[in-house]
């Protein structure tokens, strides 16, 4: 098990923020604020509550989309991994979805579902689901034959095989798909707020840019990254807790 020491995490954060601060002071661009200015702006938005109002809006499509992608994505992935027919039928859709230029799809989504929550949830799902589905399906398809034979030889049922062998064996890849998918979902949520209708965090970004309040704009972007990192760490803890012996050699942070 490789726990990166806290000290190293802090050091790498320090280097990153230091570089940001220096780049902001040079400045690299008049539109690039310093780290400290951005943190100050973030603090202002926390104090006056506008950040929380914004997140109440942004989290709606994000949480809904990520939840749908996780549940539906894993279920579909397992099914595709188990059935050759289903694989043939559905895999291409997700391969196409993964490589489709999302910006080109957004106008179509808006035409079909309007500018409300539905379209935004769709954007999150389109970003998050393919990698979850494809990772899950691949892992299920490659369950080691020997432990499947073991399960059968000790008279496991098909349900046992699914829940006690296939899913736990696939879990490292399912979780890595979830990590990638959820990161992409965060991008999707912000993208939808920038491209469909400016609400929530997307609204802060759009609005502060229009009035050249760059510290606030970067503060909003920074906050979403922090949220994503926190969420991914939570996911990893869940995984470590659920499948203890599985983590050798691939869990990192």
């Amino acid at each position, binding site marked *: 098990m490789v726990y990166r020491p806290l000290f190293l995490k802090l050091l790498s954060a320090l280097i990153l923020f230091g570089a940001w601060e220096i780049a902001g002071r040079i400045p690299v661009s008049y539109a690039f604020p310093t780290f400290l200015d951005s943190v100050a702006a973030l603090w202002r938005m926390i104090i006056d509550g506008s950040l929380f109002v914004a997140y109440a809006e942004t989290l709606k499509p994000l949480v809904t989309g990520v939840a749908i992608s996780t549940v539906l994505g894993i279920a579909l992935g397992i099914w595709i991994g188990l059935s050759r027919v289903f694989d043939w039928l559905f895999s291409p859709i997700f391969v196409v979805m993964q490589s489709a230029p999302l910006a080109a799809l957004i106008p179509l989504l808006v035409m079909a579902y309007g500018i409300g929550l539905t379209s935004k949830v769709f954007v999150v799902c389109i970003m998050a689901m393919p990698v979850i589905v494809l990772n899950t399906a691949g892992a299920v398809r490659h369950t080691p034959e020997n432990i499947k034979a073991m399960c059968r030889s000790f008279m496991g049922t098909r349900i046992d095989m699914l829940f*006690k062998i296939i899913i736990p064996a696939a879990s490292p890849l399912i979780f890595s798909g979830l990590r990638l998918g959820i990161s992409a979902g965060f991008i999707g949520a912000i993208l939808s707020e920038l491209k469909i209708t400016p609400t929530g965090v997307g609204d802060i970004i759009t609005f502060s840019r229009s009035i050249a309040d760059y510290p606030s704009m970067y503060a909003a972007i920074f906050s979403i990254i922090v949220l994503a990192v926190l969420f991914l760490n939570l996911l990893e803890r869940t995984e470590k807790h659920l499948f203890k*012996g599985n983590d050798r050699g691939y869990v990192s942070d």
Partner: protein
Amino acid sequence: MSQIEAFKHAQPVPDDIAVSTRNICKTYGSVEALKDMTLEFPRGQLTSLLGPSGCGKTTLLKIIAGLLPPTSGEVTVNGKPVTGPGPDRAFVFQDFALLPWASVLRNVAFGLELRGVARSEREDIAARYIREVGLGGFEQAYPHELSGGMRQRVGLARALSVDAQVLLMDEPFSAVDEQTRRKFQEDLLSLVQNENKTFIFVTHSIEEAVYVSDQIAILLPRPSRVSEIIRPTGFRQKSADSIRRDPEYLDIVDDIWASLRSYVE
């Protein structure tokens, strides 16, 4: 097969047969893995399937386990035909087949878990067999923390804890180092004596087969068939460490090699 002097060690087959295979054929596509395989496995004894790689030993064992259907022919266990895996047989895998995400305790109890035995009961049974195979203290360890030999002890404890009458072992010691293997072989001898079980043991090692077996079936490749059955009996009563110096042991090893050498290029 006239050159087979090993027949002088042959004994009449006991009539209490636990497992028998009748005219088993198995083809994989165009590959004929087994042809007309007829064998009997006496109850309470250890029978080895000995033969070079690729001669169909694993295939035969999996057919007996009910993991593979034969192309034709029939396997019976206690007179009942085999149609799939059953509670009367337990398998020990060459590559251990442990669950990497489960502790030693859960791995050993897994066979019982699949049979629906309540948790506290199956963990009691598993803990007993973990001690019996010499892994006491490792109950909460994970497979990746164990050596190859210890992993196979887990596989053995799992097979023992379901208390099946027939133990099917597919080259169980081939993936462990030489010293551990010798210890395993000695332990296997006492296991055969103490547990009243029928052992079917696959190996490609002549010495190993002669050392541990009550009966050895020598399989030849292409087309796969039983070339002879040898029943070493003279040194079975001897202590584990003097067998390897017994003249009969050495003779049988030589005889088997003499009959197999022409098939090894």
